[in-house]
């Protein structure tokens, strides 16, 4: 049952910066791979896991392939999870050669998540992407991952300074005239709105908030942290109130469109972000548990006969 104030259909196209996107429920980066793993998945309802999804934000790719962090990389906690994947990815070349064309062929609406170790590295990556994918109908934009706390080189500090956020966004924006540009912000700062302002001022069309929260869990058998790098990124239901707070701070403090991420598992969770003014919502950890999660939320928040 949808509340009275709810007037949107999240499966209808909407405008984000220079681009029309097919819908407002997305999958979050790193939680649905490159969007190519679930095409043959079936469910009794009949609709596939991509039905109604506005975009798959692809796993963050870096200029070179990355093997990621040592195992174990995941810890389940009482109401969420810690991850320390360490941005394992195929690298930008393979992504452009193999992944992006496959997404286009399969018609998966997508936003490409990028990370780099210097702000100025984003421009050339985006330029190459733009050159190759210029004619693609399903490539809708770029999300700059400015916040992954797991990467040793840069990592945590990278996205916590407004000045660096500004440089990253400026570099990417110059190379991306006709697709949406999003900056994904870290919650591990005192004042996230300030980062969002920096992103907006350099031309970001929206910010995504939030990435994972720094967390740690201890293995009582050993008395040491479960994760070899001690800290992991905390995600899942436990971080929903934190993500809502950060999104509210950005919506009211930075006047930039916000894509809400963090702890969304149900349509009700997603509605909370929309209630605060988010323009779209991403499903992360819940999508790992259920490849149909985002599609189910989209269906629940579509209006009209269904």
């Amino acid at each position, binding site marked *: 049952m949808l509340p009275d104030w709810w007037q949107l259909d999240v499966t209808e196209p909407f405008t984000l910066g220079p681009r029309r996107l097919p819908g407002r429920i997305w999958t979050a980066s790193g939680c649905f791979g490159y969007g190519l793993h679930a095409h043959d998945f079936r469910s009794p309802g009949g609709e596939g896991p991509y039905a109604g999804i506005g975009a798959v934000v692809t796993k963050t790719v870096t200029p070179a392939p990355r093997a990621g962090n040592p195992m174990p990389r995941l810890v389940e906690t009482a109401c969420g999870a810690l991850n320390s994947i360490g941005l394992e990815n195929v690298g930008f070349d393979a992504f452009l050669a193999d992944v992006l064309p496959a997404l286009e062929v399969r018609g998966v609406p997508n936003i490409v998540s990028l990370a780099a170790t210097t702000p100025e590295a984003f421009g050339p990556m985006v330029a190459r992407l733009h050159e190759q994918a210029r004619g693609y109908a399903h490539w809708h934009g770029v999300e700059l991952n400015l916040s992954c706390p797991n990467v040793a080189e840069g990592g945590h500090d990278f996205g916590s300074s407004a000045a660096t956020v500004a440089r990253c966004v400026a570099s990417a924006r110059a190379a991306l005239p006709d697709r949406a540009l999003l900056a994904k912000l870290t919650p591990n700062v005192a004042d996230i709105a300030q980062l969002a302002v920096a992103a907006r001022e350099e031309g970001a069309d929206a910010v995504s908030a939030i990435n994972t929260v720094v967390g740690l869990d201890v293995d009582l058998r050993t008395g040491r942290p479960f994760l070899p790098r001690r800290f992991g990124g905390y995600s899942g239901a436990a971080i929903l109130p934190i993500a809502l707070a950060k999104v509210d701070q950005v919506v009211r403090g930075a006047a930039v469109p916000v894509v809400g991420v963090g702890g969304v598992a149900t349509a009700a969770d997603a509605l909370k972000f929309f209630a605060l003014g988010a323009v779209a919502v991403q499903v992360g950890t819940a999508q*790992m548990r259920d490849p149909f999660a985002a599609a189910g939320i989209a269906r629940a928040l579509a209006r009209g006969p269904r």
Partner: protein
Amino acid sequence: MIGTPISPVSAVGRVTANRYVSSAFLRLDIDLGLPFDFRPGQFAMVNEPGPGGWTFSRPFSVLAAADQTLSLLYRVVGRGTAALAELPAGASLQVLGPLGTPFPAPTAERSAVLLGGGVGLPPVLAWCERWGRKDDIACFGARDGAEVPWELLGPRWHVSVDRPNGLPPGRVAFTGVVTGLARTLPGLPGPGRADILACGPLPLLRAAARLAQERGWGCYLSLEEHMGCGYGVCKGCVVPVVRGGSVRNATCCQEGPVFAAADLPWLGEEDGGRGEDTH
């Protein structure tokens, strides 16, 4: 080599049976309300339905599938399996499967040496039920006789136990590890004439790989890694595989859980000669 892949299905099923089949193992039957097929070695992710439940679903090898019913065999180790063990008939469960790369199908030239340890039984038992031929060898190892789910094992199964207590009347078991048991069996195939298919705790897998090497057999091992998604998207379950001297990460959930032992040279290394099959 194993035919067209089977599309995974996501469904909320209904528990039809959930009971101890030995002192430590439960068999769980879930009516999925739609046909379910799998290949031996594949697994399913299981969770409580709805927003409750655990952040990550739990992986379990498929023991059997008959029409719409999926069967699992499990042991209680933590909070998820403890909750599973409490489920009465009629309870709902979210299931995603079948997932992962199965054991290879049989070939005419080579027989199979099936080695299962503990709750590693399901994939090798399923292989045996579906494909087992006269010459294939099936061995199962448990801690003691009470832990063995005798009702599931046909007469062809050889059984080993760490401790010979708890054996039901009329049952025999080898005291020792399962690879030790296999070594005692008459008429073992010659080099190049068999593949080991094994699933169980790491020491068992190491011992299996060593046995295969000694005998000149092929060897396929089903690995266990903690899993986030179970379908390849999170990279939370990677295993280093070595081919042609270069290492890369393979997802245990998608490229595995079954791997050729040849691709896992680290298995032997870490062992450091303290292999369980030496005792």
